């Protein structure tokens, strides 16, 4: 059975005369026990999708089910079985760590003791600060507390809307490790992020942009769908190099990636020689050219165009 199914969801917002199409008819499904990533920039429609699935919003058209329940008709049943962590960690800043956790446990008719096993590993890291007000925690600790609160009632499906936004690289890494341990417990996780590099940590991902899905696949599958072969190039004058490459009519795309530029050609027959030819016209030193496997960000940008 599919834990989440989404069929042709459409959501528009009207603000005065301006209509925003947040979701333009998207469909996908998530298997039980999967970590499914919804990956795209801000404004792509991720939060609208999450709010529809957590029964907080009604779609204009299309259907969706969570754990077999319809998100509109059976919204009460869904509210009993899902855990939800909204984009802004929704904690009470004036309550302490423990008070927040107790409160969220009780509104789901449970107690901290009852499900302590599930959150133990995460909560233990913040337990030394349990009498501190949530408003005084660092980003990473807030994130852990919010996750504990979302897990405390042992949900079957966990919705995490941009849990790693504004959190530093170390905390992000730790967070993903926690998600993988939760997956082992059989919890289905739908997670959204604007960080493309987090895609590879998911079992499957949906790339989303402007309310449309660009692709739904395993991270490997998405990479294998990349249409061109890709080169990485670097030299001493990176910025001049970028302009020189972009100016060539044969180039499909050239994007900076850290110390390299990633280059794809329109004509599949063009190859390394073409790049060398472009370089010869300038006065570059320390040139390095190599073929590379695209990453999710390469794929995303290729799909955007």
């Amino acid at each position: 059975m599919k834990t989440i199914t989404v069929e042709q969801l459409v959501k528009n917002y009207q603000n005065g005369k301006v209509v925003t199409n947040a979701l333009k008819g998207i469909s996908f499904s998530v298997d039980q026990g999967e970590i499914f990533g919804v990956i795209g920039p801000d404004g792509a429609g991720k939060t609208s999708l999450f709010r529809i699935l957590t029964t907080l919003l009604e779609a204009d058209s299309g259907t969706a089910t969570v754990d077999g329940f319809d998100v509109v008709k059976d919204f009460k049943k869904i509210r009993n079985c899902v855990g939800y962590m909204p984009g802004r960690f929704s904690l009470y800043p004036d309550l302490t760590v423990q008070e927040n956790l107790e409160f969220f446990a009780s509104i789901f008719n449970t107690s901290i003791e009852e499900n302590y096993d599930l959150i133990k590993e995460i909560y233990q890291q913040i337990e030394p600060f349990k009498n501190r007000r949530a408003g005084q925690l660092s980003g990473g600790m807030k994130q852990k507390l919010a996750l504990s609160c979302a897990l405390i009632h042992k949900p079957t499906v966990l919705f995490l809307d941009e849990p790693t936004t504004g959190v530093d690289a170390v905390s992000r890494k730790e967070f993903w490790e926690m998600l993988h341990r939760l997956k082992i417990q059989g919890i289905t996780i739908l997670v959204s992020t604007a960080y493309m590099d987090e895609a590879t940590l998911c079992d499957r991902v949906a790339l989303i942009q402007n309310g449309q899905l660009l692709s739904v696949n395993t991270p490997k599958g998405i990479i294998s769908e990349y249409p061109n072969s890709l080169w990485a190039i670097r030299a001493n004058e990176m910025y001049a190099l970028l302009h020189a490459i972009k100016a060539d009519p044969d180039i499909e795309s050239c994007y900076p990636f850290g110390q390299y530029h990633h280059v794809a050609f329109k004509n599949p027959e063009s190859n390394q020689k073409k790049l060398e030819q472009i370089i010869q016209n300038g006065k570059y030193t320390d040139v390095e050219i190599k073929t590379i496997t695209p990453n999710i960000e390469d794929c995303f940008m290729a799909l955007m165009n």
Partner: protein
Amino acid sequence: MKQFLIFIKKEWLHIWRDRRTLFILIWMPIVQILLYGFALTNEVKNSKIAIFDQAKDDASRAVSNRIAASRYFSLVKNLHTYKDIDATFKQGKIRMAIVFPAGFRNDLLHANHAQIQLIADASDPNTANTLANYATAIINDYQQELNQHQDLPYTIQVQVRMLYNPELKGAYNFVPGVMALVLMLVCAMMTSISIVKEKEIGTMEVILVSPLKPFRIIIAKTIPYLLVSLLNIASILLLSVYALGVPIVGSLTLLLAESILFTITSLSVGILISNTAKTQQTAMFTSMMSLFLPTLLFSGFLFPVENMPAPLQVISNIVPARWYFIIVKAVMIKGLGFASIWKETTILLGMTVALLGVSIYQFKTRL
């Protein structure tokens, strides 16, 4: 049930930890009562008066001198025509005028019965009343002195005329008025702000996704404010009885029951506001504009409703505080029982049921 209690506990923590707001909530009614009760009560020392003496005999002069010599009054003008009285009042030069009819002494000594007219500016009813009482007391003194040597008593009939506000509506008005104001403010404004705050910090999303029923969310959020309001009612009543000497003439139980009813009315208004407001500021301004000002203006607290233009009188009917105000005055000041306020109570109850119904129906189970 446990869910529910924990929710209430959480609300208490919010209120308790925001000490500054709590401080204001508790002290505001006390300060208001003291302010209206003492600071704004007019000093009746050296109040300016005018005398229109048509008799100009030794009896009228004797009374005039006694009044003018009193520390309460200071005579600023002797008037010569009836018209002058009106004009002097309008110029705001005096607070009271004393009129002796022609032949005052004659009436007193030969008919044993004379009249004095006191005309007071009752737009400030407290002061007007006090001044009239003082003047009457001085006249009575004089009358008693005369009567010491008399078998057949002389009587001076004091005829008091209150200008501008003949029925002296407004005496003790501030206690019921402050009660209505404070309850509206605490219940409606604070409830709406606390609900909207949860929307702002995003916790509302998580609560809505929980199995907690929206109806219970609302009730749990309002109960702590209900308690704070009861505390406020208690402090207002204690102050008014012991510090201001405004007694509770009628039934205390009835008064408290009616106050709780009005508290629930205010709470429903608060929920109603929070349903539409998206930010705390909006909630606050909506409360101010739609509750605070109408309560102040239309409840009869500051301005007698009867003196307002007809359209405003009609508007005042939809202000819940107006009915509560009438009820409190009836029970507390006049000592009337439920029989005489059942109509107002029914109206208030009807409003409450309607408001509560609409606000719960409108409360969004989704965003």
